[in-house]
């Protein structure tokens, strides 16, 4: 029922704008191509930032590409993943979803994070509609911050 409404609305929008339809089906697993000049980076914090208190907002920057929620097949888009205190996951399968690999599948561009005192590493990795890294993968530098 809701599906039908959404579909009709989408159809109407598509017919009206004369644009390619937006497919939101969960199709398997060829990684989406990433533009060669796309770049994901931390707007904040920076390498070496010292944070007092442990709660902070991470602002996720993306250049030459767009953000789209999971399940959205629009070319040259993806969604953010924040890797905390971990290395890169295997790049040809979906990014794990756990305390060290946070997903932002609703298209968020900032994240509220709380970390215990100590040194921590943060890295951003973009995932396609199926949470698989693009080809080539779009990732930020890994930064180290200190919480105290």
């Amino acid at each position: 029922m809701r599906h039908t409404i959404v579909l009709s609305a989408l159809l109407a929008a598509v017919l009206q704008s004369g644009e390619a339809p937006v497919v939101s089906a969960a199709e398997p697993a060829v990684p989406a191509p990433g533009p060669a000049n796309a770049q994901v980076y931390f707007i904040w914090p920076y390498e070496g930032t010292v944070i007092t208190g442990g709660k902070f907002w991470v602002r996720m920057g993306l250049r030459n590409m767009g953000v789209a929620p999971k399940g959205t097949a629009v070319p040259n888009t993806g969604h953010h993943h924040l890797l905390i205190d971990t290395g890169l996951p295997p790049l040809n399968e979906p990014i794990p979803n756990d305390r060290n690999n946070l997903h932002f599948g609703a298209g968020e561009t900032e994240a509220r994070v709380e970390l215990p005192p100590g040194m921590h590493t943060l890295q951003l990795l973009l995932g396609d509609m199926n949470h698989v890294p693009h080809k080539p993968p779009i990732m930020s530098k890994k930064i180290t911050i200190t919480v105290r």
Partner: protein
Amino acid sequence: MRTLFASLALLALFAGGPAHSTDAPANAYCYIGWPNDGQVLAANKPFRVWFGLRHMGVAPKGVAFANTGHHHLLIDTELPPAGQAIPSDRNHLHYGAGETETMIELPPGRHTLQLLMGDADHIPHTPPVTSKKITITVK
């Protein structure tokens, strides 16, 4: 039932699109991460504008996903009327591919910048999700 939906879709098609706007979380807001209010920028040099969005997500145009929208940058203009698609012109730049930053260049003088989210159909949400309007000087 099917016929009803079909007619609704057709109606939407001929009436110039769905006129309702999408709900936004009450605490969602945009902000311009850079430049700052009052910033003075060099003329003849493009500068980057950072689009901040809190308590909501970004989705390209045409994507109906709950609590998302796409950015529009209003330059030297007021907020457009609610309930209608945001105009697309030199004063209303659309970022329908889900962009979260842009490079722009403006002529010397004072300019205002403001962000406004639009839904899948470029219509502002209810309530509208906007940033503070900032003033910058190019010289």
